[in-house]
Structures are given as C-alpha cells and as structure tokens.
C-alpha cells in the first residue's frame, strides 16, 4: 500500500468521525433552542481543528510506521504517477459533490437564511466531498480505474 493510499484511509477515518461528532452535538443543540440561539461556532472550529490535527498526526504516524517497517529508509511521500492520477480522479468526484452543495448554499444565502444554515451547509458540503473523494480514491486503488 502506497503512502498516499494510507493517507486516504486516514482521511476516511478522521472525516466521518469528526462529522458525526460535530453534527450530533449541533443537531442536539438545535433540537433544544431556536436557530439563532444555537452556539455552533466553537464546535465547528473544534471540528476543523480536529480534522487538521488528525490528518497531520495520521501522516506523521504513517511515515514513522513506514520508516520502521522498511528498516530506516525514508518513505516515498510524494507518490508516483498512479497516485497522482488517482488523486485527480478523487478530487474530480469531490468537486462535483462540493459544487452541488455550494450551489444549494448560494440559494440559501440569496433567500437570506440564517447564517447557521449557510455555514453548516458549506461545512457539510466540504465534509461530504472529502469522504466521497476518499471512497473514490480507495476504489481506484483497489479495483483500478
């Protein structure tokens, strides 16, 4: 398994876990209070921070594991042509998902919906895009493309 494939797996663990936790917290709050009183900003900043830290920690852990496994040799973190091709295919799929989500958000913004819905719409679109990209990439790694 190449280093970039391992990173893709890391994102498929980090993103769904963060998304589930975040939306559980926020939707529980939303059930108890009107939209404009729900405090979602701090959880969202935590969620974004967790994704960033989780991905970096994951990459470092993978790099250390790969170095130990190969007996001290530095792992190839750049990836080869195939890794790049798969990356493009994954990003291409993600872009379509995220773009559709963002178009829905533009409609919400034009209707002057509460900022809660707009921010969470963008956030959801980004998270779903990230997960879709991960799934498409893993499919491409495992089954070819």
């Amino acid at each position, binding site marked *: 398994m190449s280093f970039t494939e391992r990173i893709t797996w890391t994102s498929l663990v980090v993103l769904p876990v963060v998304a589930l936790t975040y939306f559980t917290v926020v939707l529980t709050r939303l059930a108890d209070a009107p939209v404009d009183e729900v405090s979602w900003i701090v959880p969202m900043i935590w969620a974004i921070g967790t994704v960033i830290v989780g991905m970096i920690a994951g990459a470092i852990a993978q790099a250390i594991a790969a170095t130990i496994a190969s007996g001290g040799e530095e792992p190839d973190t750049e990836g080869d042509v195939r890794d790049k091709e798969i990356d*493009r295919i994954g990003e*291409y799929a993600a872009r379509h998902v995220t*773009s559709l989500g*963002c178009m829905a*958000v533009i409609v919400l913004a034009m209707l002057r919906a509460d900022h809660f819905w*707009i921010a969470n719409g*963008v*956030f959801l679109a*980004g998270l779903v895009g990230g997960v879709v990209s991960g799934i498409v990439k893993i499919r491409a790694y495992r089954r070819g493309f």
Partner: protein
Amino acid sequence: MGKKKTPNCDEEWASMSRDEVYNWIFALVSLVSTITYLAILVPRKIGAPASEVSYVAPLLWVFGCGMVVGFGTALAVRLAAPKDSKVRDERDKEIELIGQYVGSGFVTIGAMAALVLSILEVDHFWVSNSLFVGFLFAAVLSSFAKAAAYRGEYPEI
C-alpha cells in the same frame, strides 16, 4: 469556430475533438459571464451598503443566460459537426481531469470564504458573491487551462 471557408480552418476543425470545441464555448461563455456579472455588481456596490445592493436578479440572469447560451451553442455545434468527427478519447478525459483540478482551488477558496463570512455573520451579499464569483473564476481558469492543455501545454500539477 471553424466557420471560415479556408482549408486551413477546416483542417483545424477536423483535428479538434468535439470536447475541445465544447470547451472553447464554455471558456468564452464563462469569461463573458464573469465580466458581465462583475460589471453589473461592482458599480452597484460602490457607495451602497451591502445589505441594500440587489444582486439576486443579476446573479440568476447571468447564470441562466450562461447556461442557455452555452448549451445552445454546444447543441448547434453537435448538429453542425461532421458525422465522423471525434467524440472523446483518453486524452479528452485526461484533460478534463486536469482542467477541473486546476479550477477547483477557486471553488474551495470561495467556499472557505463563505464559511468564515457566515461565522462572522457578515451580510448575505458577501456570502453569496464569494461563492458565486468563486464558481465563475473556477470556470474561467479550468476552461482556459483545458484549452491550453489541448494545444500541448500541460500544466505542471
């Protein structure tokens, strides 16, 4: 688009795959749309508070007209194209991926800006427009990157 009767242009036309012609249409439509939208929006914004600028109608018009003109022209090309013209091959697919990859940065920037703006509870004018202008810039950049890639200048990514 290959309308001139010179043999050179006909050869050019014949050497283009339909995807490349579609891409040129998309490139021109997205460029004209972006310029038109900004030309309407910027004067309206100057001197008016964001909450009073009416941008919804221009946004919908630019989007709608872009779609109709783009798909209309593409359909016309489809009907006018020689029967044996190339449709799509591996190279077209590869260029499509590269083009989208190049442009997607702007969608991401627009979305991240919209997220930050709505966290700061900035007026909806800015939120809508950061997203929409992000889309427009992405469309322009990716279609011109694709046009360049067709002519042999693959961007380094």
